[in-house]
């Protein structure tokens, strides 16, 4: 893991230094609490009995009462399973496409021996600094006939130029001697990419999967613009309806119950949607720390 603090040789500790150390340790503890508590609150609230939660004021230190009603309501909702299906499709297919295009693009841009590399690099980099903007993009998707399909959110994000540059930088670090000996054995570009570059780039590939995957999972805006068919809604868009637009019509059948139950349902949906990512998180952590480092080399 990158960025672990250093132990320094210190001759001796004065009282002032020990006091600082203790204060600093406490401060970091408070910081952790401030980071974790909002998430804990959501979990507690989701498990609470809805009328007790409404009556409760102030800080929750455990669920107010206990009830799984919110989760039962969420599990009865049709939009959540279809949202999971659509989001998983977007993440899997989208990330696969991202990886295919990004590796090929990065491989080409990392060539030093081809005349076309420089103009193509400029052609690609220019898009980082200037774009048509929101409305032309919207009209473009419409004119390509992609609207109201999941491809409308997958294709426009098929390459993230910043990630492409990260990957190119990483490819450039691979010694050219490896490639030259492969060429002498008659290997073409596909073989070099598949047999030499990719096996040597496992870490950066993991970073790419993580970055692209999380981006897809969390994206909602393009889906809101392009997808009308509710069966195609990704999870975040359903979530937006529930959390932001306060639209509970899908969730609560009896109007009398609506206000009371809706409070806990909101929390339960957040838990259901966020937990998968946060469960994967400990395994992914070292990769995204690495990703920040690779990105930083370029500066």
């Amino acid at each position, binding site marked *: 893991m990158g960025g672990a603090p250093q132990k320094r040789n210190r001759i001796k500790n004065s009282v002032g230094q020990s006091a600082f150390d203790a204060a600093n*340790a406490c401060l970091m503890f408070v*910081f952790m609490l401030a980071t974790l508590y*909002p998430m804990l609150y959501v979990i507690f609230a989701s498990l609470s009995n809805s009328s007790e939660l409404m009556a409760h004021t102030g800080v929750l230190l455990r669920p107010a009462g206990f009830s799984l009603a919110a989760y039962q309501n969420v599990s009865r909702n049709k939009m959540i399973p279809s949202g999971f299906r659509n989001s998983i499709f977007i993440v899997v297919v989208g990330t696969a496409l991202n990886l295919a295009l990004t590796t090929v693009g990065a491989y080409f841009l990392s060539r030093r021996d081809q005349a076309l590399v420089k103009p193509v690099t400029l052609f690609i980099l220019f898009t980082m600094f200037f774009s048509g903007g929101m409305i032309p993009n919207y009209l473009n998707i419409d004119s390509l006939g992609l609207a109201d399909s999941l491809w409308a959110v997958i294709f426009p994000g098929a390459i993230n130029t910043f990630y492409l540059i990260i990957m190119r930088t990483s490819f450039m670090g691979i010694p050219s001697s490896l490639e030259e000996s492969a060429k002498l054995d008659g290997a073409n570009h596909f073989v070099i990419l598949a047999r030499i570059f990719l096996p040597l780039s496992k870490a950066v590939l993991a970073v790419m999967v993580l970055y692209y995957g999380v981006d897809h999972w969390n994206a909602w805006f393009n889906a809101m613009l392009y997808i009308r068919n509710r069966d195609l809604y990704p999870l975040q868009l359903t979530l937006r309806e529930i959390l932001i637009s306060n639209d509970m019509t899908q969730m609560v059948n009896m109007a009398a119950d609506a206000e009371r139950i809706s409070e806990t349902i909101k929390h339960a949906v957040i838990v259901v949607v966020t937990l998968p990512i946060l469960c994967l998180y400990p395994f992914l952590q070292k990769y995204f720390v690495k990703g920040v480092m690779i990105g930083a080399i370029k500066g």
Partner: protein
Amino acid sequence: MLLPVLAFYLLFCYKPMYGALIAFFDFTPGIPLFDNKFIGARNFLDFFANRTFSRVMRNTLTISLATIACGFPAPIALALLLNELRSRRYSRVVQTVSYMPHFISLVVICGMIRDFTGSHGVIVQALASLGLMEPVAMLSKSRMFLPIYVISDIWQGVGYGSIIYLAALTGIDQEQYEAATIDGAGRWKQLLHVTLPGIAPTVMTMLLLRLGRVMNVGFEKIILLYNAQTYEVADVISSYVYRVGLQQFDYSYSTAVGLFNSAINLIVLVLANAASKKTTGSGLW
């Protein structure tokens, strides 16, 4: 082999750039671009003359500068404090926890903000019980928008933002600390004379890159948090483009506003890059 990559850039980046020409036409969807009436810079002039112009410019700058002023030093401070922790394992635990909010989606973050700051929300209830405010939804109060935006931004980003500074801290030559100790420098002196100069180039580069995006406030968080009561303080250029273009369907005008924003962003970025090259010797290009 490269064709799909080039096709992507042509279809999804360059074609919309061409499409942005509608800013100069009285465009009706479905009619080929050059069959529309050419109106030159009229959309741009309309925008400059519009009352909203000063509002969105002011809000964009205010929100951006407030985010930089509070959000930029925060990860540096966190990295320095983590670096001073005696226990490596404890430091690692704090780091792990601090990165977590970065992975929560914006929709969920904004949903949580709305929940906590609603009239029944935990923050409002806590403040109300201390007598600090009336139990009303904070997001309906325009003076609360900026603090909520900035604080939630720090909550989500401070841990992730500290990674780069922690890396810079590990890069400092340990012999410098040893030499400083021999010269009798305490930890405070070491911080001032070794640590801070050691991470200064990274800080400078990050600051200039951040300043390069000063006129670029993302619309996603804004449109998830604002409402008609807070437009006066929350509406930025990009959210205005979204509202006029995609909710009121004034395509040409909103494209012109978007182009104006892109142009400013480009100019500011070029200036920031030049400044970065001059002060640190390295830039984006």
